[in-house]
């Protein structure tokens, strides 16, 4: 019981995103009304965002904003290093390890904070979503102005007959 429960919990987000995605996809493929399709598209995109956000989750961690007081202390040290990072951080993975030791006194524990990268990516995705939505609605309005309807079958009928 316990294991099934934890399994469901462990994968619940993924299941939810798949269901949502399929709802959106279904609406885009099978719905007849253009606005409905657009709604489906929005759901579809948001589902992927849910997926990404779920990737970023980390048990026992908090939001990705550092707890701090005033200015960062090791500024001087960092200032020297900032350029260096930029130049030779190609071996990012090794550096991370090196810095993990190095930065112990920084009191920033990786385990304390949620992975911020997916969040950043998803900000972009949300914006892309609203941009697409805007363009899609603009097109839908134009379609309506031309055919006087938003139902695809009626439009096709008009196209066939005229």
């Amino acid at each position, binding site marked *: 019981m316990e294991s099934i429960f934890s399994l469901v*919990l462990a994968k*619940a*987000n993924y299941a*939810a995103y798949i*269901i*949502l995605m399929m*709802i*959106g996809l*279904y*609406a885009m493929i099978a*719905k*007849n*009304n253009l*606005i*409905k399709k*657009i*709604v*489906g598209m*929005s*759901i579809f995109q*948001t589902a992927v*965002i*849910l997926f990404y*956000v*779920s990737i*970023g*989750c980390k*048990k026992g*961690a*908090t*939001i*990705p*904003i550092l707890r701090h007081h005033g200015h960062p202390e090791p500024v001087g040290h960092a200032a020297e290093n900032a350029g260096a990072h930029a130049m030779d951080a190609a071996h990012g993975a090794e550096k991370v390890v090196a810095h993990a030791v190095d930065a112990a006194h920084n009191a920033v524990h990786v385990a304390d904070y*949620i992975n911020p990268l*997916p*969040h950043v990516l*998803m*900000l972009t995705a*949300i*914006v892309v*979503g*609203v941009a697409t*939505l*805007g363009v899609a*609605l603009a097109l*839908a*309005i134009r379609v*309506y102005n031309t055919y006087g*309807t*938003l*139902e695809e079958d009626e439009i096709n009928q008009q196209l066939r007959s005229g």
Partner: protein
Amino acid sequence: MIWQVELIILILIIICAFAAIKVRDLLSAALLLGAYSFLMCLAWAVMGAVDVAFTEATVGAGVSTVFCVAAVFHTTRRTKD
């Protein structure tokens, strides 16, 4: 991250999404999409993605819904499915 809350929100999200594509009124669909977005934003806030949640709250639940309503206003509310 309280998993009970999250689970409930996820279920509500799915219900909203389902309703949004099932309801036979486009204005309702637009508003349900807004509700969906807002619930989604709650879910993300619970998961700790505060920035994403903030953005979704303003963009998804706010402006997107207004756009949808504006488009429905200029076309029609009627739909067959």
